[in-house]
């Protein structure tokens, strides 16, 4: 008994954070879905969900309930155990990745020495959920979708990994905490390695199977890809995994390129008034909610709106807490989490923006883009950033070093595009067979 207590004492905060992540993440994913539907509606001249709760605020909960009580269908010839297990693998991999992510200097389950590598490793296991699910369904479309998905994820994981290597090179560490601290007081790595960031953006879209790279679930070709035979709760689990993965890649990008939990212009004391932004923004949202409360069509919606406004007000108070001298120590934790989540949402917003603007690639075009453009460019990018680091050690000042390396990488990018545009008879991408070495 005392051993158990001691264990709990040793691992109290990590355990609490883990529970919070497991509890909050599905909710968060649900609200990312709502955000996506709202953003999509806005871009498509519609309103989006409006019925469940004010402005559809309770829609994710309604969706989740609907999915939970749906009939659970397992295809007759499916491999039942694997069919049951596959979505779990996906979602576990996605959730496990959070254990090394630092949402602020305080909110982190485990500070690992190999943090970033751990996240990449764990999230790469999500592939198994997809490929096994597609196989276990015993359906042609599912299998093709799963194979495509795997080929695509592996190809782009190489590019994403190499893009990350660039960032890691600049930080000189793999630990998520130290990566963010390396950007403290200096510039965020997105301004040192814009091409690396761009590469990671594209590769992460492809890796999370989102448009314009959403071939695995291209509804006009493969119905729903690996998820075709899934319904109800299992389908919801896949869906959750997909959105959780989105949040993971967004968090990685935020940590590595966008300065993690750091405030914009954190090193300029004259701009310290930005610190007022977190409480004020929540206060604004709360005010808007209360302003809209009497205008809701149903009394119940008014109540929900008021409650939501109250929640935002509470958050605003929490964000204002560091300005009380007694609680000043809580500032990095609270504001850090705010800035981190804000950056993550902006990154996810860019995903959505891209999704609703572009048509879908064809599979061979996708592979060609991956192998003929992304991977070579990301290798050059790593070389460029290595050169940058060496030049900085040779006491070059920032701008010449930056212009030289980024300009060089950009030239290579242009050259690659030019190569691709030349109508040479390039052999079909060899793709799947060779990337285990990558």
């Amino acid at each position, binding site marked *: 008994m005392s*051993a*158990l207590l*001691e*264990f709990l004492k*040793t691992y109290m905060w990590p355990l609490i954070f883990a529970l919070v992540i497991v509890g909050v993440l599905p909710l968060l994913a649900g609200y990312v879905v709502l955000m996506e539907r709202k953003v999509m509606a806005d871009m498509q001249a519609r309103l989006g969900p409006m019925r469940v709760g004010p402005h559809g605020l309770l829609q994710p909960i309604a969706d989740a309930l609907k999915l939970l009580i749906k009939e659970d269908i397992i295809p007759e010839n499916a*491999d039942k155990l*694997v069919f049951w297990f596959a979505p779990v693998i996906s979602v576990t991999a996605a959730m496990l990745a959070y254990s090394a992510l630092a949402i602020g200097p305080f909110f982190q389950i485990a500070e*690992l*020495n*190999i943090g970033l*590598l*751990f996240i*990449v*490793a*764990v999230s*790469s*296991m999500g*592939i*198994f959920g997809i*490929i*096994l699910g597609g*196989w276990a369904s015993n359906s042609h479309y599912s*299998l093709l979708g*799963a*194979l495509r998905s*795997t*080929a695509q994820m*592996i190809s782009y*994981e190489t590019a994403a990994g190499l893009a990350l290597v660039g960032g890691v090179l600049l930080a000189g560490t*793999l630990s998520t905490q130290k990566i963010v601290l390396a950007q403290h007081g200096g510039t965020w790595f997105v301004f040192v390695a814009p091409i690396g960031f761009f590469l990671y953006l594209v590769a992460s879209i492809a890796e999370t199977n989102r448009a314009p790279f959403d071939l695995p679930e291209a509804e006009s070709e493969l119905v729903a890809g690996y998820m075709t035979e899934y319904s109800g709760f299992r389908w919801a689990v896949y869906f959750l995994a997909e959105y959780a993965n989105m949040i993971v890649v967004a968090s990685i990008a935020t940590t590595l390129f966008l300065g993690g939990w750091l405030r914009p212009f954190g090193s300029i004391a004259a701009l310290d008034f930005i610190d007022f932004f977190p409480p004020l923004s929540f206060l604004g949202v709360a005010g808007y909610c209360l302003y809209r409360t009497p205008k809701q069509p149903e009394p119940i919606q008014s109540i929900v709106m008021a409650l939501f406004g109250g929640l935002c007000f509470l958050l605003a108070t929490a964000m204002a807490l560091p300005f009380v001298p007694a609680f000043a120590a809580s500032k990095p934790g609270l504001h850090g989490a705010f800035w981190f989540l804000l950056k993550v949402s902006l990154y996810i917003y860019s995903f959505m923006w891209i999704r609703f603007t572009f048509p879908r690639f064809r599979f061979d075009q996708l592979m060609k883009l991956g192998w003929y453009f992304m991977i070579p460019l990301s290798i050059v990018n790593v070389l460029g950033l290595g050169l940058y680091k060496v030049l900085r050690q040779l006491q070059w000042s920032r701008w010449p070093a930056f212009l030289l390396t980024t300009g060089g990488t950009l030239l290579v990018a242009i050259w690659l595009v030019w190569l691709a545009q030349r109508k040479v008879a390039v052999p079909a991408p*060899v793709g*799947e*067979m*060779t*990337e*285990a*070495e*990558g």
Partner: protein
Amino acid sequence: MTPEQFSQIAFYFFAGLAVLGAIGTVTARNVVHSAIFLITSLLATAGIFLTLGAQFVFAVQIILYVGGIMVLFIFVIMLVNLDVALHQLQFNRQRWVAGLLTLVLASQLGFAIWFARGEGSLDIPAGRTGTLSPQNVEQFGLALFEKYALPFEIASVLLLVALIGAVVMTKKRA
């Protein structure tokens, strides 16, 4: 419970999982199940690496072994998936002889380890000597690029050769 004890429990848990996974790998009728068992075994091994403080090897094991090689395996299994194979004999003719010989080998090795233990050279509790820190990524990198730079390059050449070989072999003959 100290972290020490915790890692002990973790070791025996992972060891059991690894052995179970390995047994599943060689006995499963369905190749995909076999691969799943192997993945379990490999992941358990990665866990053991973690208890040994080899964090980098842990990550490499997952990224390369599980995320790379095993995906490749499953990929190929799906390409050559033959339902016929499920109903054929799973073990070959020499299975009894092979089993016997393996047991002999196992007992030999087992005795070897057992007697080595008696001599005392294995009795040093692990991790007492030397300066290997648990957070050894930096040490690892330095050793890899200084002491083992040549083998590293040779390994990359090996990969290149394998890559070309695989492409040539699977390429469609026009």
